[in-house]
């Protein structure tokens, strides 16, 4: 390796659900594109199925690949804080994506979504779409801090808005699980006005269950994260999918790009980039429609 080559490590969670799959895709695509553009950059991309594996990956990047920069989307904040701090201590540039570390000041660059905001935007939409109140059911993700933050944000936003949450279950950001849970919600509650599926993968399952049951009391399903099929339906004016809330998996690409540019230019970009969650409606849906993305 000549001295000019810089190695950038990218460590992300594996594609175990739709959003993560999209994020994997964007990461891979960004790496491919940047390796082409900047021959002096070398990338190491590792995907982890649990926090411990992610720590292993990061250790390996330091011990065997001598990385100059690390782009990490932590599986969980706490367990990754120490190891990333160690990487920082070795002199590498640190970019943290999506989930902040539990200690401030480690990262040079922070590119993130806004989980409480994601819940809040969804809650506000619910309240606004049902001014007279209504009964809803909620599907939650995999039990994690992210999910907790989103649900708390949502609940805060519908506070005092006469919206009754009939039931909440974990759908694990998984279509099949969401389908099953929704079927059971439908058996259990004769009248449901709307569903907060909180994720577009789960929304797919929810819609399948509603369709199969032939129920027409449910006026709409609000997903989230901006899966292309769902955004398309919003764009086309589908009444069941009147809106979406963004949480772009492409933020990883932004982060990798910013880091790469920083490595090759004399003045690296640092600071915080918070990518707020935006409400997608038929009016602005076109802006958020990426037909080439797998998500």
């Amino acid at each position, binding site marked *: 390796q000549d001295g000019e080559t810089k190695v950038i490590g990218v460590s992300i969670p*594996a*594609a*175990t*659900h*739709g959003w*993560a*799959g*999209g994020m*994997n*895709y964007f990461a*891979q695509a960004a790496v491919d594109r940047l390796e082409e553009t900047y021959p002096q950059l070398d990338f190491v991309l590792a995907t982890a199925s649990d926090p411990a594996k992610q720590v292993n990956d990061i250790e390996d990047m330091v011990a065997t690949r001598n990385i100059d920069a690390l782009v990490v989307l932590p599986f969980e904040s706490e367990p990754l804080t120490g190891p990333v701090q160690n990487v920082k201590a070795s002199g590498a540039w640190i970019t943290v994506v999506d989930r902040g570390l539990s200690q401030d000041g480690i990262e040079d660059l922070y590119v993130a979504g806004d989980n409480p905001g994601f819940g809040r935007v969804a809650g506000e939409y619910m309240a606004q779409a049902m001014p007279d109140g209504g009964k809803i059911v909620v599907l*939650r993700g995999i*039990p994690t801090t992210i999910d907790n933050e989103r649900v708390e944000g949502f609940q805060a936003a519908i506070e005092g808005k006469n919206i009754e949450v009939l*039931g*909440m*279950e*974990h759908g694990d950001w*998984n*279509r*099949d699980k969401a*389908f*099953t*849970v929704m*079927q*059971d*919600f*439908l*058996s*259990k509650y004769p009248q449901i006005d709307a569903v907060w599926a909180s994720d577009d*993968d789960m929304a*797919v*399952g929810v819609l*399948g269950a509603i369709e*199969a*049951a032939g129920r027409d009391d449910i006026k709409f399903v609000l997903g989230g994260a901006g899966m292309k*099929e769902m955004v398309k339906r919003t764009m086309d004016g589908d009444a069941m999918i009147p809106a979406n809330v963004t949480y772009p998996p492409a933020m990883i690409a932004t982060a990798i790009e910013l880091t790469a540019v920083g490595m090759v230019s004399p003045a690296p970009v640092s600071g915080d980039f918070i990518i707020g969650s935006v409400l997608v409606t038929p009016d602005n849906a076109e802006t958020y429609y990426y037909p080439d*993305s*797998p*998500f």
Partner: protein
Amino acid sequence: MTDAAAPAPRRIRMTVIGPILALVLLVVAGALMNPNFLGWDNVTNVLARSAFIGIIAVGMTFVITAGGLDLSVGSMAAFIAGLMILVMNSLVPTMGVGIPVILVGMAVALLAGLAAGLLNGILITRLGIEAFIVTLGSMGIYRSLVTWLADGGTLSLDFNLRSLYQPVYYGGIAGITWPIIVFAVVVVLGEIVMRSTAFGRHCAAIGSNEQVAKYSSVRVDRVRLTTYAALGLLVGIATIMYVPRLGSASSATGMLWELEAIAAVIIGGTVLKGGFGRVWGTVIGVLILTLIGNLLNLTDFVSPYLNGAIQGAIIVLAVVLQRDGKARA
């Protein structure tokens, strides 16, 4: 002389009644907790969603009875689903949206299932590697392959094709949907094969004592291979039912199905070390597992975080019911 075996029947009786009793208790509990529980909709929902694991678990019953194990079924299902969707989507431009494309897709699923099962079986019987290792390996391989096929994301069936294909999951005859019908057919056939054919006997003989089976001119390797191939085929059939439901496959598809299928088989009274299996028991096992989830969704007196704990406890209790108080000798 006839009533000589009294202690044996008494024990057998408990192992027979045990799983049924557990199932009945669950149903009664469900009916008490929620009036909709025994409603037609909920019952068909539960049966239809049992079908995937159920069809696979019937095949698993044979594999386990013959002393084997297959950890790869879940990811095999995901891989087959992905492959099927890819093939069907790629045929739409040339063949148009129509029944033929779907038939090709089904054929692909059956062939891929059979091939995957045969591959497992050949590695296990020809190379003589522990089934646990072979299928752990293929589990990783298929799971990876589907992730790769889907580019990390989700493979979705062409929208129009999906509408055409959907009746395979949602439609049926006289209100009984296809998955339930297929499941029932597989179970009945499985029960007959297990109880009343040479193949079923040979599976039990091999699982009971492979040496004895060999010395009795049983074609041990072929029977074994057939159990894995049949399981693969059944995974293919389950996938054919699964794809029209949501029209997609991703790396999350079929997650932990292997564990559920094995658990169902064992809750049903089949012996994990082989030698004795019963298909109807497996069906009860599958229903118990599905019902637990259903019940937990229909009631909400515990934190959803604890669902797993209740599920675990009920599984153990269902098996405790099968014992007649006495630890095995």
